[in-house]
C-alpha cells in the first residue's frame, strides 16, 4: 500500500492505544507493523524480482536529513504554490517524491545536497540565518537571485544550476501527481474510440481531413 494509506492505518491504530496502554502496561511494546509489500508499494503493477530488491534497498535508506527536507518543503511551494486551480507542490506529495528520486537516481544527490548547502551559506552570509529560518521576504529575495538565468549575478551562478534542477524535479513531481494531472487537463489514459481531432479544434487552426483520409480511416459508427 502507498505511504499515505500506510500512515492512515497508523493513525487509526493510535486512537485506541490509550485503551491498550492500560492493559499492556506489563507487556512489551506492540509489534511493529509488517513492512509494506514492496510490489504494492511500487504501485502494485508488474515488477521483476531484481526491481523489488532494488526498491527495498533504496527505500530502506534515508537521504535528506530533517533540515534539508524542511528547506525543500519551503522551496517547492515557492516554485509551485497553491492557486485557484489546484494545490501546491507539498499538497501533491513532491517532497516525498524528491526523497525517493535522489535515491533512485544518485546523480541528483550531489547537486541537490550541495545546492541546499550553498543556499544556506548564502543566507547565513546575508541574513545570519539558514534559508528555512529566514523571513518570507528574505526567502523570496534569495530565490529571486537564482531563479532567472538571464539575470543572475555572476557571484550566484552556482545557485542557478541548483534552482534549475529543483524547478525541473518539482514540476515533474507535481504534474505527474493526481492533483497535477487533473490541473493539466490531460484527458487520456482511458479506453476510447479515437476519431480524430475534434471539429472545433480543426476549425481553430483552419485544418481539415481531406476526402481520402475520411474515406479510408477507421470508422466507429457502425459495428
Amino acid at each position, binding site marked *: 500500500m502507498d505511504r499515505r494509506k500506510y500512515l492512515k492505518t497508523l493513525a487509526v491504530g493510535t486512537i485506541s492505544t490509550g485503551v491498550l496502554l492500560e492493559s499492556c502496561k506489563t507487556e512489551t511494546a506492540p509489534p511493529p507493523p509488517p513492512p509494506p509489500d514492496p510490489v504494492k508499494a*511500487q504501485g502494485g503493477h508488474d515488477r521483476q524480482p531484481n526491481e523489488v530488491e532494488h526498491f527495498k534497498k533504496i527505500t530502506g535508506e534515508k537521504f535528506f536529513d530533517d533540515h534539508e527536507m524542511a528547506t525543500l518543503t519551503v522551496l517547492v511551494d515557492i*516554485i509551485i504554490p497553491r492557486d485557484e486551480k489546484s494545490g501546491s507542490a507539498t499538497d501533491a506529495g513532491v517532497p516525498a517524491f524528491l526523497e525517493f528520486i535522489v535515491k533512485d537516481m544518485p546523480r541528483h544527490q550531489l547537486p541537490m545536497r550541495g545546492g541546499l548547502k550553498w543556499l544556506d551559506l548564502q543566507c547565513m552570509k546575508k541574513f545570519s540565518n539558514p534559508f528555512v529560518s529566514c523571513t518570507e521576504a528574505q526567502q523570496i529575495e534569495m530565490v529571486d537571485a537564482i531563479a532567472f538565468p538571464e539575470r543572475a549575478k555572476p557571484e550566484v551562478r552556482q545557485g542557478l544550476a541548483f534552482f534549475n534542477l529543483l524547478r525541473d524535479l518539482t514540476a*515533474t513531481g507535481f504534474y505527474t501527481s493526481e492533483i497535477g*494531472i487533473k490541473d493539466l487537463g490531460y*484527458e*487520456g*489514459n482511458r479506453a*476510447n474510440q479515437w476519431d480524430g*481531432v475534434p471539429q472545433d479544434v480543426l476549425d481553430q487552426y483552419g485544418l481539415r481531413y481531406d476526402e481520402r483520409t475520411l474515406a479510408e480511416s477507421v470508422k466507429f459508427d457502425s459495428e
Partner: protein
Amino acid sequence: MADFQIKKSSKVYDVIVVGSGAGGGMTAYMMAQAGVKTLLLEAGPMYDPAKNVTQMKWPWESPRRGASTTFRPFGDFDAAYGGWEIEGEPYTQKDGTRFDWFRSRMLGGRTNHWGRISLRFGPKDFKRKSIDGLGDDWPISYEDVAPYYDKVDQLIGVFGSRENLPNDPDSIFLPPPKPRLHELMIKDAATSIGIPVIPSRLSILTKPINKDRGACFYCSQCNRGCTVYGDFSSSSVLVKPALNSGHVDVIANAMVREVVTDETGKPVGISYVDKTDLQEYQVNGRVIVLAASACESARLLLNSRSVSHPNGLANSSNVVGKYLHDSTGASMGGILPKLIGRKRYNEDGVGGMHVYTPWWLDNKKLDFPRGYHIEYWGGMGMPGYGFGFGMQNLNGKYPGRDGQMKPAGGYGASLKDDYRYFYGATFGMAGRGEAVAREDNYCEIDPNTVDKYGIPVLRFHYKWSEFEVKQARHMKATFEEIIQKMGGVVTWGKSGPEDNYGLETPGRIIHEVGTTRMGNDPKKSVLNPYNQAHDCRNLFVVDGGPFVSQADKNPTWTILALAMRASEYIIEEMKKQNI
C-alpha cells in the same frame, strides 16, 4: 557441486525452437497448426500482457513517475524484462569500437514492447547489390516472400493505407486512425516540399480479426503490453495459441548453452541451464530451430563447437557473426508556437505515430546509397518523469497567456501556469535508415569472458561508414526543412560533423540483423534460401540473423514472413523424411 550432472530428457521432440520472439513464436505457431511435437525454450520467464500488467497505470502509481531504470531502459511501465545491461550477462567491445546490445528476456521477447511498425520489404530491398554494387543480393526475391506477407497480414493484423508505392508494398490492411493535430501540420508542411506523409503501418487492431483478441482502445501504451492483445506480441498472438493446441511445450527460464551434436556432427538436441534451479538439462530433437535474436543465435552457433565443427556449428563459411548491421537513427525536435495554449482533448490514439514518411528519393542522385523512413511524435501525451524539464529554455522566448514577455525561468503562480500553457506544443521526428552490411562489422566469442552460467560471451566490433554518416546528415537537413516550413522552432537535435550528425550508437535502434546470413554459396553464407544451415540439414535460424541486408524498414514483419515460410518448408521436409 557433488550432485552436478546433466539431466537428459528421454522425450524426443520433432522440433526444438530456441527463443520465443517473432521468429520462434511463429515457428511454434506453425508447428502447432501442423500437429508437430515441439519444444519452445525461452531464456526469460513466462509473460502474458493480460496478467503482467502495467497498462493504464497513472504516472503517480510509479514512485519514479515512469522514469527509466537499468532494469527498464524505456521507462518504468515499459514491458521489457532486460535491457542494455543484464546482471551477470556481460558483452564486450573490440578495438575501441562500440555496439550497444538490447536483450529482452521474456516469453515473446522484444515483440512485447516494440513499436509495432510493420513494413514489408520492397522488391529492391532483396537486390541491393544489383542496384548499387554494395553488399550482396538476397538469394530470394519479393515474389518468394509476398504470399507469406499476405498470410502474416491476415493472421496478425496491420493497419495502413493502399498507396501503390514501388518499393513499399501495400499489406492487406485494416483501416488506419486519423492523423493527430501535429501530424496534420507535419503532413501539410512536408507534402508541400515534396516529402510524402502517409498513414503509418502498425500491427495494431483497429478492427477485431478473431475472437481471441480485442480491438485497440487507443490508450497509446503499446510498449506496456496490451491486456486485450490489441497489438502484436508473439507471446499473446503466436505462443498462446501454440500452447493451447497441446502440441507445443514451453520451458521458460531456460538459458541455452549449446546445440548438442552426435559423433557425425549432426545436431541432436539442446543443452540448457534452468535458471530456477541452476541445473543442467539436455533435450533431444529431430530438427533444431534457432530464434534467439540475431546475435544470440550467432553466439549459440559459435559456442557449439565440436570435432566436426571446430569453428562453431554450421560455420564452415566462417561467416557466423559477421555482416552484423543495425538501422541508423538520428532525430530532432522542437516546439510549434501555434500550438501553445491549446485546447484539451484526448489525444492518445494508438501506441505510435498515425503517419510516417516512407523513403522518397533516388539514391543515385545522393551521396549515400540507401534510404530511410521518418517517424513522428508529439502532442498531449501522458506526463511522466521529465515533464516540464527545461522550462527556463522556453518561457522566456514566447509571450505568456497575458500576451507579455517575461524573464526566463522563474517560480510561483506564473511559472505554474507556464507548464499548462506550453503543454502539448512539442513534437519530434526521427529517421530510421538502412546501413550497408559489411563483413568487418561483427560479433564473435570473447576468448576471455564467460557469463554467470559459464557461457562464453560476445565481443562486438562495429563502425559506421561514411555512407551512414552522410545519411544522418541528410536526415537532419530534411528535418530542419520540414520544421521550418511548418513554422516550428527547433529546440534540440541540431548537430554537425563533430558528432556524426547525431547518428545513434550502433545497436541503439535495436534492429540488428545479418549475423547468420542466407545465400546460395555455402562459402559465403550460413543458411540457404529456406533458412536452413548449409552444413546441417536439420538446423534452421529464423530470427534477424538470416537477413542479407536490412532495408529502410523495420525487420519484424519480414522475420515473421520468413519464419512462416521456413516452417512450411520444415514441415514438408519432415513429411518427406528428408530431415
